[in-house]
């Protein structure tokens, strides 16, 4: 018998709810995205107010669109972390309320694991090297020994933060990735920027400072956008290539908000070809934050008996994904 689960994502700028079936179909995926003012980043409290106001409609729409009656839900999954405290708490409150009124299990999900597992489902990826790139993460991972293991990561800023902080310096509002990609497309004038690869890890802080200085020095936004993309993406591609060569795996999967960037995925495809590997892409709609990543991972966890009593259902602002046991994979 097919069963259904509802998943609630509320870790940062996106409040999203999805109903999925046990065979991996996304029946609904509604969302409300907080938009900060020009030149600003996410203010956690402001974002949580957006989520609070949006929650009733986003939840109701997700259930309506799915066509699944409330009584058909087997469990409620929520993003327990990592993320912004005020935002996480909104999702948790909604999830607890649903779970207790429906009298179904409450399933805690790690948001980052959610990106990976939904990616694997939608991209049909079995055993990939994962590049998780977003505002919250820049990590290269592979599954081994019951966990997703970190093979490389940023030592300071994430790729999303690099792009957002650079964009905000120019007066844009987060997320700035798309505007930077567009600006970069109109330039081919590479300005030399620091390229910092340390073993399997990357560091972006020097790159950010140098890029801001170039802007301050009068270089055009498109030239610096082009240069920052070329430099940062090449760094990330290099360490992903190292992980691919080291593990000998034959697939790379890109997930997270920055996966939407065409230049990054282009570089990855180019790199993967050299190793006779394929690049698995998640559809853009589902590569960024969404309820479906929580619903699907919640289903996997639920099917292994993972649940949390409501009175113990905390949120965890810091919760590294390599601390999460993954009982559903072999």
């Amino acid at each position: 018998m097919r069963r259904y689960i509802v998943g609630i994502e509320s870790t940062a700028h996106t409040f999203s709810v999805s109903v999925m079936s046990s065979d991996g179909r996304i029946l609904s995926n509604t969302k409300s995205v907080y938009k900060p003012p020009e030149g600003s980043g996410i203010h956690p409290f402001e974002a949580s107010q957006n989520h609070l106001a949006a929650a009733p409609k986003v939840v109701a729409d997700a259930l309506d669109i799915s066509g699944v009656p409330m009584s058909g839900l087997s469990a409620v999954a929520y993003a327990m972390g990592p993320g912004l405290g005020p935002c996480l708490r909104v999702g948790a409150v909604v999830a607890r309320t649903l779970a207790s009124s429906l009298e179904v299990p409450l399933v805690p999900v790690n948001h980052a694991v959610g990106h990976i597992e939904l990616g694997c489902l939608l991209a049909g990826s079995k055993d990939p090297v994962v590049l998780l790139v977003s505002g919250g993460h820049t990590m290269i991972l592979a599954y081994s020994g019951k966990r997703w293991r970190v093979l490389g990561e940023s030592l300071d800023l994430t790729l999303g933060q690099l792009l957002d902080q650079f964009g905000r310096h120019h007066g844009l509002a987060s997320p700035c990735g798309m505007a930077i990609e567009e600006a970069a497309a109109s330039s081919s004038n590479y300005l030399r920027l620091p390229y910092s690869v340390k073993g399997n890890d990357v560091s972006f802080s020097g790159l950010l400072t140098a890029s801001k200085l170039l802007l301050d020095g009068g270089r055009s936004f498109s030239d610096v956008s082009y240069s920052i993309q070329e430099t940062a993406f090449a760094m990330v591609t290099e360490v992903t290539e190292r992980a691919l060569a080291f593990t000998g795996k034959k697939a790379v999967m890109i997930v997270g908000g920055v996966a939407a960037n065409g230049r990054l995925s282009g570089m990855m495809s180019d790199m993967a070809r050299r190793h006779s590997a394929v690049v698995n892409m998640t559809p853009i709609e589902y590569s960024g934050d969404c309820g479906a990543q929580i619903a699907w991972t919640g289903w996997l966890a639920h099917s292994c008996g993972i649940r949390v009593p409501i009175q113990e259902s905390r949120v965890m602002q810091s919760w590294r994904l390599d601390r999460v046991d993954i009982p559903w994979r072999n």
Partner: protein
Amino acid sequence: MSISPGVTESPRRRLLYRGAEADVILGDWQGLEAVFKIRKPLTYRLQVLDEAIRRQRTVHEAEMIHLAKNAGVASPFLYNVDIESSTLVMQFVRGDRLKDLVASLSGSQLAGAFFEFGRDVAKLHRFGIMHGDLTTANVVKSEERLVFVDFGLSVRTARLEDHAVDLRLIKETLVGAHSDVSAHAIDSLNSGYASVVGQARSRAVLKQLQNIERRGRYARVT
């Protein structure tokens, strides 16, 4: 495969390993069995950036391979450097990569190998060299000693932070790729490290490593 002038074309050559940034080819050079490490253009990278990186790493690696010997750590003998084709020609080190050995080692052999690994890393550090790429794929167990290869990311530095980054990569590789034995191996590695630089320095580096991990995203280091 074309090799630029200056590097003798070998009649027998085969690809040993396709690494992330270089092809490692076994051939011969002036009658010697030799490894050709060729940093091929990476087309995903902008050409101007790619050329600068390949050239810099090739020259730099040659220097560091030599320096490592001064530090008392075994590294391949270097036969030739060809900057135009970003190629290093060096001794073929016979043996097994630590990466491939780990699974077959007994508990005491593992402890011994990682003690030695830690000891040699400490020798590099004491001499002011950060290897920069200390994965288990870059250390070869050859007869009775470890030979360090791939100095492409090495840096001359005595900074605590840099030495800690070196150890961090070993730890990352062990936990990532050899999770079943990582705790045991890390203990031995740390003992070997301390045996060269002393307890105080070793503790300071490990403390710094913890600081780096704490800086990591969403980390809760206890």
